[in-house]
């Protein structure tokens, strides 16, 4: 049975079984990944993974259930489980199933050519990159990660209100972590490259960037702990942004879990700060033309010149607030219930390069990597205190790498202390992006 037929049949059965309205969400992901270690294939994995979720309105409550087995038996399992799930729910602020937006932007998230290139050719590229990195400098010991993944994902959403949407995307990600040693000093540096265009990958460029990223960390020095002006590199900023995304969720605001509650229309960040939601950004690998409820997604400013324009809404939070959904219903997978997330969220770039920002700092710290983000951040209070890797800036130039540091502050203050955004733009595979930021100051503790 093909998926379209299956969806139709299941919807039909669900309505007959007493659901007032129902929706079927289907997802399938194909993935190939491989790791190399000193020229040998260390792991090789192909997988196909998928499932289907039924969500329906039963006795005034939205129950849901999912399965990975698409056969006739699963239909009654899904219907019975979704009913049982609806029965146990307390919430009565019921949201119906969506009838569809007037218009959906068409955009290509899938590059067919990527799949036509054979796996051996992709492994060969990875092997070449590893070889070039290891030959790059005598201080390079090995690579503790030399990893390539290619994936393609299909999603479709159909409901009893005749909405039928589908989405297809693919991409390729290379992740490299290089171990370097000089005397007793052991350091690593990681590098990530993602694309849908295999032919754009250049082994020499990638190897050089990955090797330099690690080598730059050798020769660390300690500097006094204290408050310093900070340049937060684009990739580190994007990772911090992704952790603090929940403050933008209307659901969190409604549950008193976000200090941005009631701040729409108010100044929440410095004038230079603009935060954009861009489902169709060419440099990001994620995004889609519809959200987890089937609502059309769109380009929109979340924060414009420091002013909060909107929180991220799904249909439930929008109904509560008496506004339109912003198209940010999110399904993590066919297993998940609906949550809220952006579709490519990035800090808009400025005019000057990161180098020019560094040149404007007489003494400060350039942060290139943050770790411990899942534990050292409090999205409710905004407090963060996280491990950082980076460099001492003196007289507008990079003086030396700094020993392990922590940077600490409060994200809401941080937003107000951004003095300039650089012209670079970097996206993480999860769709969060940023330019590099010049921040007035943060508390730095050095090991």
């Amino acid at each position: 049975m093909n998926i379209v037929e299956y969806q139709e049949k299941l919807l039909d059965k669900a309505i007959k079984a007493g659901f007032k309205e129902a929706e079927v969400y289907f997802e399938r992901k194909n993935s190939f990944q491989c790791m190399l270690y000193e020229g040998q294939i260390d792991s090789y994995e192909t997988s196909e993974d998928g499932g289907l979720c039924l969500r329906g309105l039963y006795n005034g409550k939205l129950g849901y259930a999912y399965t990975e087995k698409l056969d006739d038996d699963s239909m009654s399992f899904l219907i019975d489980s979704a009913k049982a799930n609806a029965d146990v729910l307390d919430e009565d602020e019921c949201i119906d199933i969506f009838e569809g937006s007037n218009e959906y932007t068409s955009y290509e998230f899938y590059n067919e050519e990527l799949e036509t290139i054979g796996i051996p050719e992709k492994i060969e590229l990875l092997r070449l990159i590893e070889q070039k990195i290891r030959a790059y400098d005598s201080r390079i010991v090995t690579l503790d990660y030399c990893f390539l993944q290619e994936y393609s994902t299909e999603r479709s959403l159909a409901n009893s209100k005749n909405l039928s949407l589908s989405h297809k995307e693919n991409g390729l990600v290379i992740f490299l972590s290089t171990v370097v040693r000089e005397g007793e000093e052991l350091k690593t540096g990681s590098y990530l490259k993602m694309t849908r265009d295999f032919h754009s990958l250049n082994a020499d460029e990638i190897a050089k960037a990955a090797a330099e990223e690690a080598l730059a960390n050798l020769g660390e020095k300690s500097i006094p702990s204290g408050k310093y002006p900070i340049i937060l590199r684009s990739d580190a900023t994007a990772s911090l942004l992704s952790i603090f995304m929940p403050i933008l969720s209307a659901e969190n605001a409604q549950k008193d879990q976000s200090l941005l509650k009631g701040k729409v229309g108010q100044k929440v960040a410095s004038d230079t700060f603009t935060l954009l939601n861009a489902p169709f950004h060419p440099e990001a690998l994620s995004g889609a033309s519809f959200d987890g409820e089937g609502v059309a997604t769109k380009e929109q400013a979340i924060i414009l010149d420091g002013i909060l324009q909107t929180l991220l809404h799904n249909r439930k939070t929008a109904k509560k607030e008496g506004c339109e959904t912003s198209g940010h219903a999110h399904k993590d997978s066919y297993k998940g219930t609906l949550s809220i997330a952006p579709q490519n969220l990035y800090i808009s770039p400025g005019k000057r390069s990161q180098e020019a920002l560094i040149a404007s700092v007489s003494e400060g710290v350039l942060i290139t990597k943050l770790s411990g983000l899942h534990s050292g951040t409090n999205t409710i209070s905004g407090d963060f205190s996280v491990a950082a890797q980076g460099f001492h800036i003196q007289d507008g130039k990079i003086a030396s790498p700094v020993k392990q540091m922590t940077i600490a502050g409060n994200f809401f203050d941080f937003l107000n202390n951004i003095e300039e955004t650089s012209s670079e733009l970097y996206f993480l595979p999860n769709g969060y992006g940023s330019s590099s930021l010049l921040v007035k100051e943060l508390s730095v503790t050095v090991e």
Partner: protein
Amino acid sequence: MEHARKATIMRQANDIARNYDERINQVKVRYLDEEQHVLIANSEGKFVEDTRIHSRLAIQATASEGKEMQTGFYGPGAHAGFEFIENLNLEHYAGEAARIAVTMLHADECPSGKFPVIIDNEFGGVIFHEACGHGLEATAVAKNNSVFANRIGEKVAPEIVTYIDDGTLPNEWGSLNIDDEGEKTRKNILIENGILKGYLIDKFNARRMNAEPTGSSRRQSYRFNPTSRMTNTYIAPGSSKPEEIIASTEYGIYAKYMGGGQVNPSTGDYNFAVMEAYIVKDGKIDRPVRGATLIGNGARTLQLVDRVGNNLAHGAGMCGSISGSLPVNVGQPMIRVSEITVGGTKGE
């Protein structure tokens, strides 16, 4: 088990946390039960089956007053069924989650600098899970990507430190009858009285290392390749009484509940958040502080353990690594490290 009985317990936990203090304005209770059936067959003739049942209740409480908001968390779990959830002391767990949130609400900002740090028992063991445990997994050791590689028999810690991984503890969250390659789990002594004794080794890396597997091969599901992972890892109890450890500390940080952390297994550099921290002054717990992050190097921190308490306890956590997300216990008695770099918002 009926959904309604599960929901009743969740509501009870919610009510306990909410009623703890009027400043508790949000409580999130998550319930998990999971039954995993495994069948492992290999070309060496192995054919074994097992069923693993995990149950967990996780309580997060948020306290707020004015512009301040803080959270507290407690998540007890076991390799057991609903009887574990039904017998949980909800007053204790939900009450603690609420107490932590309220305590942190008006805590001072944590000072930064290098201090002696006292880490309490139970989930406090997460620091050695990250700082040492990962570096003892064959995944890192076999490729020489660990500071502990090729050092069996060497002194890597003070004599008071014995570090054990034991997958056989009855009903503990990280326990297993057999590992995911069908080997019986066992008690693996990793560090004994400061001397490095062994690693956690899966079959594949055993060949690479020319060693025996240790019943430590794990994976989240069929979607992952198994590799060497921890089960219930803990520092064995010593002789110091907890109150004496605090009383003998002139100035330092007392980390009562740890948050999560991370390690770079190649270098051993780690970082940790402390969920509930206090300043210790003149041998007494002085006042709560928030925003404390501990950073350092696992191998060096291990050398600096100067007290090991007598109150061993285990705490449940999830450990994410290349073979997926797995239930593991971390455990220890109260310990003291003579110096750790503490990052805080307050400055020095």
